[in-house]
């Protein structure tokens, strides 16, 4: 443990406040050599939670080993896990923190996530925007993804890491799989150290071009899990965003046991190719097909990119249906309104379910009678068709459709 040294410490701040800010808090801290802690609070919720905020502030400062400082809190209705994160960020930036973390009260984590669970939709949540986090699970995506990468400015990477860590611990996302998109390596490795102790269900690795990047992340996660006694899976989803990444899709998909899906980042991929990204996506057809094929070869899921026009439901529906037809099992969402559209697009049609159920019924009958050949009416059903029908019915059940 390092005691704070006033000579190496400096004034620092974290978080946001202002009339257009909601659910966040701005913390500024000014170290001093003596005089103890002086905490000033301005808050819209002061009549209701003013005392609670002051108590929490002192508690966080004590946990982090801050003894002498002036602290000004300008609160815009932030929830306790956000307040803790912002204070910790300011204290670390001020060079005052010991090695402790100011962790918020935990909520019950969801059941461990299965390798083949539904991953139709994953809702992106910017890692420094607390206002979107608390209700994200209510909108019913299969997963939420706390983003540390593109949605976070470089200067806020430290803040996002701490906020995301606290959100993993203290926010209930319902039955959603809790994903985190880390930064490109090596910065991503620092992200892992902060978030893995809070047991995310899945880590997305951006800009993967070689299987070695996946094994590096996988090894680090294994070490961290061991050290922090995390006994639940932390799956990996590499994001392929370049020609090189797509070329290596097959070895990347097979790089580690914990890889459960491959996905593609179309903005970067089309930039790498030097072509325009279109609504039809013809320019990425090869890459997406190749990714689907590589994923299938490795027995993992193929997950599509996002549809970036949140207002265009029709376009999203067309994209999603085409994507399912190519072999993808889901895609990303940038707005909760996209979730039901995506779920509908990736759902098998009633006719498909009906016909698959008939095949499954015939298969079960054949098994009961000890017959190897499955037949429906006068037609013999190919074993591959039986397998596809079993898979489709299982998926339809998971979606609540069968």
């Amino acid at each position, binding site marked *: 443990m390092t005691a704070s040294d006033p000579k190496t410490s400096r004034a620092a701040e974290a978080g946001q406040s202002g009339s257009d800010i909601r659910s966040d808090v701005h913390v500024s801290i000014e170290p001093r050599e003596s005089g103890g802690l002086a905490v000033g609070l301005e808050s819209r919720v002061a009549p209701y*939670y003013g005392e609670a905020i002051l108590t929490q502030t002192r508690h966080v400062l004590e946990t982090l080993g801050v003894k002498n400082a002036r602290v000004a809190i300008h609160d815009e209705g932030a929830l*306790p896990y956000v307040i803790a994160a912002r204070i910790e960020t300011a204290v670390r930036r001020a060079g005052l923190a010991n090695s402790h973390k100011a962790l918020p009260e935990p909520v019950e984590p969801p059941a461990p996530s299965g390798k083949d669970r539904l991953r139709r939709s994953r809702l992106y949540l910017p890692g420094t925007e607390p206002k979107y986090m608390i209700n994200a699970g*209510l909108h019913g995506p299969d997963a939420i993804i706390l983003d540390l990468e593109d949605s976070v400015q470089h200067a806020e990477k430290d803040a996002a890491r701490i906020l995301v860590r606290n959100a993993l611990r203290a926010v209930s996302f319902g039955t959603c799989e809790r994903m985190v998109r880390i930064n490109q390596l090596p910065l991503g490795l620092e992200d892992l150290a902060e978030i893995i102790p809070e047991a995310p269900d899945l880590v997305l690795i951006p800009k993967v071009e070689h299987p070695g990047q996946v094994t590096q992340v996988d090894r680090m996660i294994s070490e961290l899990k061991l050290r922090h006694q995390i006994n639940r899976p932390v799956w990996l989803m590499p994001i392929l965003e370049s020609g090189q990444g797509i070329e290596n899709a097959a070895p990347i998909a097979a790089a580690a046991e914990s890889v459960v899906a491959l996905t593609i980042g179309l903005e970067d991929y089309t930039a790498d190719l030097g072509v325009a990204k279109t609504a039809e996506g013809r320019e990425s057809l090869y890459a997406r097909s190749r990714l689907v094929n590589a994923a299938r070869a490795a027995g993992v899921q193929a997950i599509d990119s996002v549809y970036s026009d949140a207002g265009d439901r029709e376009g999203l529906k067309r994209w999603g249906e085409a994507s399912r037809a190519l072999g993808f099992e889901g895609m990303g969402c940038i707005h*909760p309104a996209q979730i039901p559209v995506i779920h509908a697009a990736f759902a098998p049609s009633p006719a498909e379910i009906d016909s698959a159920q008939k095949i499954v019924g015939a298969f079960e009958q054949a098994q009961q009678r000890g017959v190897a050949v499955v037949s429906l009416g006068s037609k013999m059903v190919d074993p591959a068709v039986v397998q596809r029908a079993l898979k489709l019915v299982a998926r339809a059940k998971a979606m609540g459709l069968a």
Partner: protein
Amino acid sequence: MTERVELAHNAAQRRVPSMVNNKPQIPYLGVGKYQPRGRKHAPPIRSSKDYPENGDKRVVDIETALRKCGLRDGMVISNHHHLRDGDQVALMMLEAAAKIGVKDLLWFPSASFPSQKPAIDLMEKGVIHHIEGSMNGPLGDYCTQGKMRGMGVLRSHGGRWQAIQDGEVHIDIAVVAAPTADMFGNADGSHGKSACGSLGFALADSTYADHVIVVTDNPVPFPCVPWQIQGNNVDYVVEVESIGDPARIVSGTTQITRSPDRLRIAEFVARFLREAGIMKNGFSFQAGAGGIALAFVDCLRRMMKEDGVKARFVRGGSTKYLVELLQEGLTDYILDGQTFDLDGVKSMAGDSRHAATSPFTSYNYHGKGNFASLVDAVVLGATEVDVNFNANVVTHSDGRLLHGIGGWQNCLFAGCSILALPSFRERIPVIVDEVTTLTGPGEMIDVVVTERGIAINPLRADLLGAVKGSRLPIRPIQDIKAEVEQICGGKPARPKLGDRPVAVVKWVDGTVLDTVWQTG
């Protein structure tokens, strides 16, 4: 005002004053418990011989009209609020009164708006003694800070009609802003450059006041057709350059909320009406013009189309969204109390199925029934609701005046009254142990819909039964409350309220439901 106020507990266990502005009060006795007696209040009998035979009642300005009406100290003068924040007539009237030099007026608008802030100055100068009518923004703060000489009296739209009709408030002079009028005083709201749609809030004033002045910026030769205000009740007509700022009278467009949480609430409300079997052919509903309400109308419209269901009538505050229902044949009628946007104004002016209503037809509790109880479902907001479904709509949780009651209390008489609310705002939980200011008794509130689930009042076993087995997230209200308190970091501290009453909240029958206390 420094008079000592005696307080007594009413039937809702709230402490209320027994005298308000020197008038004895009846404490709230419970829903339907107070039996009014006597006859309605009435203006004096007039004779045509005293009015110009050619029907020309025009005088040169408001000051002249007020003088001719005999304005003097202590009188009650009123306005309607159909021009909302764009109104200029109320201030013209108050300033003319100041110029005449009278003092201690009781200003009795159907609602006040932030643009009427200069009224504070007139209270400081003694021209206005106090305001009875909804107050928010600067006027609300002035009242809650205890600076007003008299007590504020908050009434619902129906309650205001009741108070005028029953003679609780006698209006000496009503000044009616009219988007169109003729020289005889016939007046209409849905035409003219300052068109606002319905003029229903002015109907009681024009019927019961001793004197009525119509002020218009769109004079037309007799007859003004249609007329919502009858010239036979009008003493004087004044023509002015402008009665209001059109941009703030109606909004150009009303916007559906874009917040995913609020859209989710709106969708839950619509699904609830569908699953509970309320959304069926010939049904009726009312929703306001807030973001959630508009999104609700949009969802319900989709479901009505899917299920081939048509409403008999919908109640406004009308907006583009209600007008579209009418135009698409999804409702036979709009019964409109106030008109919120340009589409609403246009529709009322041009479509006979879009009818103007008044607080008399829609809301007055001391009448032979009213439309509000004929509505199958109503979707309302609130600032707080408690575990017994009692709700607050008039103050912030800290006791500062926030909203008027509007038609809110009256609407609770609908077949199914629904509060559509986020479960917390900022960090402040909406479901509480006890509301700061009681505006609606819990027995009148049937359903609370939040983004975290739907709570049905246990008194409504029928509704609980109707949605049993549906996929709606029906939860006990305590359960939602506990979840939100966990998120917000515990129960909020109770705000500290003063012990001096600054306003009272009336129930629909004129009894005193609760008290607003001085703060800050």
